[in-house]
């Protein structure tokens, strides 16, 4: 243990091995299968047919790919932007008053975070569907007569339900990040600005936002990647068409027609490329600032 450099790598080795081997193997196999290497049906020649099929819309999977890509980008983009904005306003409001946010508030934020997405999505489904609890309350108040008159809030074509889900789960996440930054460095600046007569809106834009932007942006990037890759929530709260990329990929991967597997694999790798690309771009821009 004399050699400090060796010690560094020894302590890192288990983590690197586990991540590297498991993750590396999964990438290797994913690529191999997307290239049509599927010995179940005796296919051992490599080809880009699956990619060609999905990109040139040659198969049903292909015809859905672009719609799914657009849908996933829209849902994750909109949800990320709304969450970041909401988190900023919430955190500024909570830390704006003279007293620090109460423990119960922080605890509620954390409790929301701890609820599994699956549970949250089910709760929203029971609450917001056209015959759900809110619709029943509306019916009891005489606002609607038939379920069809209640607005379509979940399982809708535009992914509103999925966006509502993620906004209500990611605002607490991002708000906690912003609160942490504000607590360590922000309050004095805001107080000074307030003494100098800056209104709440000016304070938010000129003081709070620049202060928290790097942290918030990093958090938002994680949120985007997470929503873009997610399966459970779009599967539960989405519609038959358009479907999210992850739903499309898994559906084709599990299709009994085994030749579809390669297409499912290709879609999931395209999805992975988009996420890694966006994350990379985010990093580049982050470093430039």
């Amino acid at each position, binding site marked *: 243990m004399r050699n400090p450099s060796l010690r560094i790598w020894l302590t890192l080795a288990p983590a690197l091995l586990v991540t590297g081997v498991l993750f590396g193997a999964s990438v290797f196999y*994913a690529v191999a299968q997307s290239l049509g290497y599927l010995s179940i049906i005796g296919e051992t020649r490599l080809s880009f047919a699956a990619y060609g099929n999905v990109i040139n819309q040659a198969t049903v999977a292909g015809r859905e790919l672009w719609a799914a890509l657009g849908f996933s980008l829209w849902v994750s983009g909109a949800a990320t932007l709304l969450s970041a904005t909401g988190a900023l306003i919430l955190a500024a409001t909570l830390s704006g008053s003279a007293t620090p946010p109460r423990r119960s508030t922080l605890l509620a934020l954390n409790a929301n975070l*701890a609820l*599994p997405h699956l*549970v949250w999505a089910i709760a929203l489904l029971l609450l917001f569907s056209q015959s759900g609890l809110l619709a029943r309350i509306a019916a009891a108040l005489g606002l609607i007569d038939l379920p069809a008159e209640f607005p379509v809030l979940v399982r809708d074509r535009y992914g509103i339900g999925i966006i509502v889900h993620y906004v209500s789960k990611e605002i607490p996440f991002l708000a906690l990040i912003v609160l*942490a930054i504000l607590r360590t460095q922000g309050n004095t600046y805001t107080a000074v600005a307030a003494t100098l007569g800056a209104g709440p809106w000016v304070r938010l834009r000129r003081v709070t936002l620049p202060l928290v932007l790097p942290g918030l942006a990093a958090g938002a990037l*994680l949120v985007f990647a997470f929503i873009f890759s997610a399966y459970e929530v779009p599967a539960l709260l989405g519609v038959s068409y358009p479907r999210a990329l992850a739903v499309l990929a898994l559906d084709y991967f599990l299709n009994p027609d085994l030749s579809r597997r390669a297409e499912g*694999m290709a879609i*999931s790798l395209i999805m992975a490329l988009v996420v890694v690309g966006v994350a990379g771009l985010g990093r580049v821009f982050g470093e430039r600032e």
Partner: protein
Amino acid sequence: MSMQTRAIHSIRRYAFHIALFCFLLGPVAALLLYAGSVRWFYPAILPNEWTPQPFLRQIGNPRTRDAIGASLTIAGITTVLALLIGLPAARTLGLRRFRGRQLVLLLLFLPNVVPPVATGMGLNILFLRLGWAGSYLGVILVHLIPVLPYTIFALLGVFARYDEGYEQQARTLGATWPTVFWRVVLPLAGPGIAVAALFAFLVSWSQYVLTLLIGGGRVITLPLLLFAAVAGGNPASIAVLALIFAAPPLLAIALAARALTDRERVVVQQY
């Protein structure tokens, strides 16, 4: 400030907090209502009878109990492994600056952004060949892919403000490594490690896609059961299972309340 404006101010504050709490936790109330209902259809605003039947049925169902056991075992072992592997790495990454550090961080970060759908599909065939598919071993290993990075990044925060001087002092005074660990490292970093463990547990606890793709229908954890119940369509059963699934995370948050709210720390956590 006059009495009146102060009153208005505090009313507004209360209204804001009530709205916030409804937003953060309100939907759970829907689960509670459905969990005690039977044949509760639109437009009935409340169930026409309350019954513990759906709850008793789930608790009495050996499948549910097995799934709870499987979820606890898998998340528990995954957490312990993630800590064992993650602690030395996070300590080094937090305390040392060395060539290649950025690269290591990037490699550890990558599984966080690559979709679990892709990771699971890739490992599906490999694990089948190795005979790990459908076993706890396989599921735990595949859970480590997302859990390990989270654990390490959570622990990084702990070690970023950790003073190694105490360890060196103890060593100079002749303490052995185990003693240093129990007497110095744990007291200093213990609460942070506990929070990291909590989040490691939660990330594993909530995995659906990876368990589905590697468990091969033989390792049935709670999220798998819950997804099957959603397809089964009985709202009372769905709600009861959802509450059972949500209980340990909520309990853990309550237990960790002090660590979460006292310290100025946020664990970057997503699952």
